């Protein structure tokens, strides 16, 4: 997929299983949105194919569109409508019976904002409403493009709970993010993307394990911080305990961030 001379996505190939929570992880400009939009059928790749249950999403088959729920990277709302009116309007587009809006508002924790216009909602509330709009027709597959971008940590954690509950209720969730911790906390499998390619694809745990990175153990010795890097943290900790040197102990294993650094050989720039 190219935009003029820019090769935005190149040779990307992956499969998402039903019921899976799948993450596309990478810095801004990696090609996550482009990839997701090809899968949703919004963009036609110059080469290659996308299929959802053997249907080409670019055909905009109504049957398929009723099965997928989409949250785009920008908050796409009708101007000057209240939260409930947005849901009523989107619901009518999918021909769902009226009266589900209040239940949806409750599901995303916006009951008390039902009559507030979307322009007056906070960033986190907009994201929640945007997700609710993607759920009006109870889709089996949900695509979310950076749902937690630009949220404060508190709002981000709140949203995680909502996203987990979507997946727990049996939906397939495909999400993009540039937060390593988010991918690690939510996703069954993660594809790490950079510069239009998938560098690695596996469960977060397997990705970190595959790195075979040393564990960093920090202790305080005579008020001085001492760092030990080891591939056998069990023995190192036992030794330290034997010497009664566990003051100010902290143990840090490798994270997806380390995996990313290792893969790209450069600083992560979200």
């Amino acid at each position, binding site marked *: 997929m190219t935009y003029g001379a820019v090769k935005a996505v190149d040779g990307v190939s992956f499969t998402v299983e039903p019921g899976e929570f799948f993450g596309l992880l990478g810095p801004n400009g990696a090609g996550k949105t482009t990839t997701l939009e090809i899968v949703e059928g919004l963009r036609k790749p110059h080469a290659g194919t996308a299929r959802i249950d053997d249907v080409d999403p670019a055909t905009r088959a109504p049957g398929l569109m009723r099965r997928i729920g989409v949250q*785009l990277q920008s*908050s796409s709302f009708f*101007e*000057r409508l209240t939260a409930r*009116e947005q849901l009523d309007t*989107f619901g*009518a*587009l*999918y*021909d769902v019976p009226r009266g589900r809006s209040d239940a949806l508002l409750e599901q995303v924790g916006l009951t008390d904002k039902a009559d507030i216009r979307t322009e007056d909602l906070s960033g986190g509330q907009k994201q929640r409403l945007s997700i609710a709009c993607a759920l009006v027709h109870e889709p089996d597959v949900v695509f979310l493009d950076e749902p937690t971008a630009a949220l404060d940590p508190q709002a981000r954690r709140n949203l995680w709970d909502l996203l987990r509950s979507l997946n727990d209720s049996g939906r397939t969730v495909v999400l993009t993010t540039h937060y390593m911790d988010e991918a690690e906390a939510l996703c069954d499998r993660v594809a790490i993307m950079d510069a239009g390619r998938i560098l690695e694809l596996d469960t977060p745990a397997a990705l970190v394990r595959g790195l075979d990175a040393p564990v960093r153990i920090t202790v305080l010795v005579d008020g001085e911080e001492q760092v030990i890097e080891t591939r056998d943290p069990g023995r190192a900790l036992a030794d330290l305990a034997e010497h009664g040197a566990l003051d100010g102990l902290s143990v840090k294993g490798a994270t997806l961030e380390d995996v990313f650094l290792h893969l790209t050989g450069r600083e992560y720039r979200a």
Partner: protein
Amino acid sequence: MSPLPISAAFRSLTTAMLKGFFRDKMAFFFAILFPLMFLVLFGGIFGNQGSSKAEIVQVGKVAVLDDAPPAAQKVFEQTLDIERTTSEAHAIREVRKGDADAAVLQRGDEVIVRFSRADQVKAATVQGIFSSIVQSANVSATGQPPRFSLATQQVEDESLSAIQFFTPSLMGWAIASGATFGAATNLVVWRRNGLLRRLRLAPVRTSSIVLARVSVSIAIALVQAAIFIGIGMAFFGLKLTGAWPMIIPLLTAGTLAFMAIGLLAGSVSKSEEAAVGISNFVVLPMAFLSGSFFPLDGAPGYITAIGRVLPLKHLNDGMLDTMVRGEGPSSALVPLAVLLGFTVVLTAAAATLFRWDD
């Protein structure tokens, strides 16, 4: 699933767009209150000109006025506003102050008209009126029926009273700018906030989205027309004289043509500001050249030539013909054909420039 899935989507989109419009104070102001302000202003400034009567102070008995036959009395009523007094000094004072245009009195067989030169047009009018009153009184004194009679007919809009001219013309401008701005900003905003693409992923046809937008714009145009005509009739003495129900097809075709212009403006604009700027740049000069703000009767030939290729000129012409020039429904046919022609060509142009996203 209901038998007509389109209609639920169409209804909800229409509702959403109408709410969006009526809750947008700026859009509401510029589409309805702003043009109305011009109507009130122009109606007020020029309101008394077309139908103004000469104000006369009559001193004592004046036979040519008092004893004129009923038919002549009726003409006096239409042209003269007569105040009666017995004091000549009072009458002269009124004229001096400018409260009356002339004082009239009779001494023997002599009718004396005293006027001020302050308003020369009025002074000339009054003199003209009275010389003809005196002449016809002379003719009837001979007992012979008059041989010649005078018939007058208006030929230009200058002869329409101000409100009769301004209501249709300003209405044309209001409808044109409402449709243009509505389509242009709607397109840009929805493209920028991703709603266009979001709607693409819903099982609605593009045609129901377009149809919803068109219906909303036509509804807004109907509201504009109703308010214009209502205010014109209630406060400024507007009289609808022609096949005025033709304004409904006219405003529909006008809305379509100017929505197409708006789509074109929205397609080439990256931001809402640019869309508004381009719309203004197109509609405002067109309004001047189409005679929305003043009649073009006295304008040089090249101005009227430009006007002939502008859709707003045809919209205005159709509105004037069917609302105040007393013309029949067929007078709307040419404007309708021209407006629909513009719609087809401009929509085709906009379609080639259309983008779902930035």
